[in-house]
């Protein structure tokens, strides 16, 4: 795993020790250890995407209001395909709520 904290890009090795504690090796700073632990146990991503905008040629940009589990990215994108947003839309308007049972909403990121 490569740390994303800074351009160093430390190669992290994450293992569990005898007590079941997670051990991050290779990190050269504290932030790297935290990232390694998170990324190894519950990796998350903020997903940004587009949805259709009714009656408009151009699409609407959206994001998950919070990061969602990395494994659900493509499920979340699939859910968006059936959504048709309606103008006028404002930044922060919920476009699709509780994406794939994550409890996180897709919200608009532009005013149209």
């Amino acid at each position: 795993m490569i740390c994303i904290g800074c351009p160093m890009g430390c190669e992290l090795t994450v293992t569990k020790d005898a007590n079941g504690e997670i051990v991050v090796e290779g990190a050269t700073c504290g932030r790297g250890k935290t990232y390694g632990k998170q990324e190894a146990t519950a990796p998350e991503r903020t997903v940004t995407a587009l949805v259709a905008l009714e009656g408009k040629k151009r699409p609407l940009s959206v994001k998950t209001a919070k990061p969602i589990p990395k494994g659900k990215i493509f499920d979340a994108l699939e859910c968006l395909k059936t959504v048709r947003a309606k103008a006028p839309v404002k930044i922060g308007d919920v476009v699709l709520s509780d994406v794939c049972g994550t409890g996180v909403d897709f919200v608009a990121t532009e005013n149209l």
Partner: protein
Amino acid sequence: MNDVIIVGAGVVGCSIARSLSRYELDVLVLEGKEDVASGASKANSAIVHAGFDAEPGSNKAKYNVRGNAMFEETCRALHVPFIRNTSLVVAFSEEEMPHLQKLLERGEQNGVPGLRIIDQAELRTLEPNISKEAVGALLAPTGGICCPYDLTFRTAENAAANGVKFLFNKPVKTVSSENGVWTLVTESGETFQARAVVNASGVSSAFLNNQVSATKYNIQPRRGEYVMLDKSEKGCFRATMFQCPGPMGKGVLVSPTVDDTIIVGPTSEDIDSPDATETTAFGLDKMRRLSTRIWTEIPFRKAITTFSGIRAHETTKHDFVLGEAPDAPGFFNALGVESPGLTSAPAIGQDLADEVASKLDAKKKETVSDDVSIWPRMRELSTEELNELIAKDPHYGRVICRCETISEGEIRASIRCRVGARTIDGIKRRTRATMGRCQGGFCTPRLMEILADELGIPQEQVTKFGGESRMVLSRLFPEEK
């Protein structure tokens, strides 16, 4: 049935069409590709040659010198830029100087006016950026530069204004005659008939001729690679700089263009396929090397684009083959027209048109239109003219191509005219949009939108140059029916 079918809408085909449109004749131009100037006419050195290069007595020599003399008048009538910037053939050693003398004598035999040899001092004064190795040059004051696709397009536009019809995407597969009627069949099986055929089909010209005549010709496609440098280099050379031909071949030229960019090239390489228009690492490398003979510090970091053109070199006569085939009455050739084809085109057009008209016993029209669908060019107008224009058509107030300052009005006009643009490259050649330093980075999406709007097609059907050259493959959210 048409009176005349011209096969090929390059600069030669269009010049013949324009000259023929002065006669009472129904003329049809069949072009295999999607637009005018889609072969050698779109990718060449853009040089109006003086005429010292061609073998005395050859068609190349005759039409070069005559064509050159016609350029002012032709370009004035067509509203296309033409500059007599002079040509210089540079010698890089004392051993090469006698060759310049030979070129001078040959040029004089061909009737090229004003040739003289200049020494190093005069050369340096005229062209301060010339390599220190240069020792002298042949100066040809009648050498010039023009825009080959602008010339072709406006020639076609004027031909169309005088009744010539143009059909595109009609590659001719077979040609035959029966009872004085010529029949052309395209690759898709469409049939066209005419009393006379003019074969101006560039790299295909031998293929058509050899179907109807016992006098066989052979076209060897010859590729030349070029690079275009940014207009920031404007002024580096005033004249077109040729290299004295030597054991290393003809070398490459460095020349200003009428659009203020700098053209460098061409290499010369015989190739198997007339479609092999790719540039190559080998060719570009060779061109870089050769061009430094003229311009030691030539700034290739200022390159804006590279391209290659295919010349139709005839290998039995090494000359233009012009006129009626001896054993095929009504079949006229403009075959093997390679360099100096652009320079010769106006003269070839005139002679072939007269020959065809005489064969068909056609009369000259009493009135001829000089319309070439000229549209206002934003960058050439005064504030008052612009305001008046924008009040009438606000499209002229919206800049689409930033690098070349081209307005939406110009883009739309280039689509709406008689031989209008149907592709992104078609717009590019008619307006210069996308030809600047950003190479369409900003304006391409806008051009797609305007083209789709004017043609009434969805944007995903817009192509770069016809066929499957689609700009985008699909829409993310197809509109509901």
